[in-house]
């Protein structure tokens, strides 16, 4: 299958997985940080919200590495699009969503906002996401991470089947 971004052919999964593993290890070996993205939402919130929760040492102490790391994620996506041959341009294309559900820009923003709420609230309750639990936590043989990863993958399987094989069928 091709990507929504300029119909690119994705890297082979084995190459992709090796690269992600190497980046995870470099982040620890060079930067002394365990991979994890979802706390970054709290780092961003803490720029505005000054309550006790957002002034925990885990937040104040990780601004210096997580904020540039998050900026890098945006930059990496930008460079990937800009150098792919198609060039960088903002777009609304959403692949199978457009074919099966077909909302316009405003509808997509509302749809994504609703899902985003669950992502922000859920990952922070779970204490991690695909990177912190699914990759680092499982690789470190942490029981919390194995349980959380099983929960979010199972919930995703149920939700996508409800959306595409029940709702949009």
């Amino acid at each position, binding site marked *: 299958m091709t990507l929504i*971004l300029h119909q690119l052919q994705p890297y082979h999964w084995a190459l992709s997985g090796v690269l992600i593993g190497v980046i995870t290890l470099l982040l*620890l070996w060079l930067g002394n940080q365990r991979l994890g993205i979802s706390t970054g939402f709290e780092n961003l919130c803490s720029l505005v919200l000054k309550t006790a929760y957002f002034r925990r040492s885990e937040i104040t102490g990780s601004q210096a590495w997580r904020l540039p790391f998050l900026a890098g994620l945006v930059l990496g996506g930008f460079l990937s699009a800009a150098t792919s041959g198609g060039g960088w341009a903002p777009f609304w294309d959403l692949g199978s969503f457009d074919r099966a559900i077909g909302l316009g820009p405003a509808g997509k923003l509302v749809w994504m906002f609703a899902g985003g709420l669950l992502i922000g609230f859920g990952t922070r309750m779970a204490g991690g996401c695909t*990177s912190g639990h699914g990759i680092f936590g499982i690789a470190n043989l942490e029981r919390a991470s194995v349980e*959380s990863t099983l929960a979010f993958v199972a919930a995703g399987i149920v939700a996508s089947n409800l959306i595409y094989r029940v709702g949009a069928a």
Partner: protein
Amino acid sequence: MNTALFLALGTAFGWVLSRSGASDYDVVQAMFLFTSFQLYGIIGTAVLVTAPGLWLLKRRGRTAFGAPLAVKPKPRHPGNVVGGVLFGIGWSITGMCPGPILVNLGEGKLYALGALAGALLGAALFGALYERFPAWLRLPALRVGTGDG
């Protein structure tokens, strides 16, 4: 120096998430609908590469610059599963987990703005409610948090 290192590693990670399909709505749906092995293969391989490297690094106990290695395991509590279920539904709805929200923004996918706004509000709500959750969730003390990453 450190800022440049983390920016560079984030950029490399963002690039791979973009080009591997991990931040592609269709690849995520194909994982959840069992029509493509791509994302299972990516996560599985990443774990298989990280695990032995992590074991060696912890055994060595030092970073490349000689500092003591800090790998703090995440606390285990019922929130891991309850929050995981909520997150999984959000991952399915948006086709994005946290990293790819930012990668998709960088790629120019405008709908990712909705996901980012939702995720920030969701995290803010979670923080505001932290001390009001029911006791059976057994969330760690506020200064500890649910687990960072």
